[in-house]
């Protein structure tokens, strides 16, 4: 990432809540040390199925074929704060419980249709939560701004914790589109374009270009 991209991403992230973005950008995240909780093979299989439901196999590879489940565990272990790790681990149980409640059995036993119905509902709930959280953070930011007019002291930021499904969805998307399968099948992979054309025609349906990183 370079400075130009960063400036834009920060601005774009304002009001939204991109944990993936925070991972790449944040310099002010909580300092809590991470203490990795081991993921089991079952966890990885579970995550693969969740990710596959979010980004399924179509005429291009899905998240499972792209190895997204395992990637999620690496990110959670290495890049998440302790708080976010806890949310993530608890979320796996919460999601399975929600599946039991909706369909009478756990996620791994659910059909693709049942899984989709569940995640559509959880996604809706998550979006409401994210909106509430963003509103709160914007209020805090305003307060902080006013505080900074008077003094440069850090204004302790109060906020709501991240939602586990936001983590799952963002890691699925991030993991998929940065994977070899996702980049070469889900996008138009051009590692060495050789030239830049400022204006070309675009027809709806054509894939976005993607470079090495």
């Amino acid at each position, binding site marked *: 990432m*370079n400075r130009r991209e960063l400036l834009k991403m920060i601005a774009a992230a304002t009001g939204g809540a991109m944990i993936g973005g925070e991972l790449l950008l944040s310099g002010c995240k909580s300092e809590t040390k991470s203490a990795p909780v081991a993921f089991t093979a079952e966890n990885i299989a579970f995550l693969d199925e969740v990710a596959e439901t979010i980004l399924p196999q179509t005429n291009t590879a899905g998240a499972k074929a792209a190895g997204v489940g395992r990637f999620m565990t690496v990110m959670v272990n290495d*890049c998440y704060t302790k708080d976010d790790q806890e949310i993530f681990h608890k979320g796996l149980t919460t999601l399975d419980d929600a599946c039991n409640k909706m369909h009478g059995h756990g996620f791994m036993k659910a059909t693709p249709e049942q899984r989709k119905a569940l995640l559509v509902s959880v996604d809706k709930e998550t979006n409401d939560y994210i909106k509430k959280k963003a509103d709160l953070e914007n209020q805090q930011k305003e307060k902080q701004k006013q505080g*900074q007019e008077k003094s440069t002291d850090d204004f302790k930021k109060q906020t709501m914790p991240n939602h586990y499904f936001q983590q799952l969805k963002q890691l699925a998307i991030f993991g998929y589109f940065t994977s070899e399968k996702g980049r070469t099948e889900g996008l138009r992979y051009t590692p060495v374009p050789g030239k*830049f054309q*400022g204006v070309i025609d675009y027809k709806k349906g054509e894939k976005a270009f993607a470079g*090495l990183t």
Partner: protein
Amino acid sequence: MANNTYDAIVVGSGISGGWAAKELTEKGLKVLMLERGHHIEHIKDYADSNKPAWEYPHRGGRTQKMIDDYPVLKRDYPLNERNLSFWAVDKDSPYVEKKPFGWFRGYHTGGRSLMWGRQSYRLSDLDFEANAKDGIAIDWPIRYKDIAPWYDHAETFAGISGSKEGLPQLPDGKFLPPMDMNIVEQTVAARIKDHYKNKRTMIIGRTANLTQTIPGRPSPCQYRNICSNGCPFGGYFSTQSSTLPAANATGNLTLRTFSIVTDIIYDKDTKKAKGVRVVDARTNEALEFNSKIVFLCASTFPSTAILMRTATDIWPDGLGSSSGELGHNVMDHHLKLGAVGDMEGFEDKYYSGFRPNGIYIPRFRNLPGDEKRNYLRGFGYQGSASRESWSRQVAELSIGADLKEALGQPGKWTMGIGGFGEMLPYHDNMISLSKDKKDKWNMPQIVFDVEFKENEKNMRKDIVADAVEMLEAAGVKNVKGHDEGCEPGWGIHEMGTARMGRDPKTSVLNSNNQVWDCKNVFVTDGSFMTSASCVNPSLTYMAMTARAADFAVKELKKGNI
């Protein structure tokens, strides 16, 4: 000691050091270039230059361990998985912050020329005359005409692409063909020009990426936009791609890595430098190297720290401190603010390739004849328009095949611009050497006492407000201004601490970058800057280094130094 004697010693191998080595060796001098860090061989040592996203365990992100290990680097974008080995390790390079200062360093051959942003702009007389006109600090001892031919020289060799615009505040240069703007940038540029009746302009960035081959540089830019990993095509200017091969080709260059300069050997009888003292970073061995001239290009604060550690038996605060200005007038650019919004329409247009460059909005505030603002000087913006990528939030699409399909396609157009503001030189913004804190080579740590003041704070309000106003005037929707706050240092444009001037009582260097108190020592990195301008400074270091090298060799031949 015979093989420790050279005509010239260049301390540092970054943008300035590389230029000093090239110019001096090409003029026939035997040059020793000292680099404090490890060697990075062009192409061969660019471990990440061809690595696809999926080969990074965290796909380029930052881990909690990295955040713990890099308490300074983590404050801004440099801390990521991609080119971490190019940044100095924080724990090996401690410093003291009386006030917060983010110091992002590259300690290896090529220095930050490997990771730099490559934006290359000329200062103008608006900048060179500013201090005198405003009654701020001291006057620059040079004017644009003094440096203009050296800008030509630097641009021609480095390979700067850009468009000629005829703007007095941003002089044109010797440019390679400009890169394209995309459709939205073209539209916004035209609307800004129209709305502000030519008083404000948006141009394509001027960047040290080759849009065509030049002598000695067989491959132009390949539009991968991962320059800061090191370019296997040599598509952008760095020491490795440009000045080092030129210097090596003369047969006159010796490069010694792991060589930390402790001080300059000053001879009080001749009032000249005899060479430098070095500690070997690996063995801690103390060494001496002799030369007729010394070029300090160690980057702003390390060069000044070398002066501070030199000849302390004569001047307790070091060589150049007789001015009372050594270590003072620290400057940077202030940034991390601007505006972003959406551009409706243009869905049938796209672009191909990854342009390592953006658009530039040259300074338009406090120009001659304009209404005065509640601050001095001005700012420019860098930015770009692009179509959103897979990382966007698609609120209307929940999960499943539709989401996957949509994210695989380009999204709506967004346009963002971010300001780079000039910081005034303040005497009390300063660095000093710690009396008690040392680094692992027993060298005193640098203490930072630097802050943005009222002028910068007032300017920031205009930077955001003007960004919002311009984007809205250009038809951009949902425009949001933002100011994330900024610490000195985050611009990574450290300047000042050994400024040039007309009077040895108020400046460390004369108009030829020569230390007033020691005529065979030249300082040509950012420390010589008398004011900061608002444009990216590296091109000015290249030009001034070449100019000083030319002067030094002439003086040497005349027997004056």
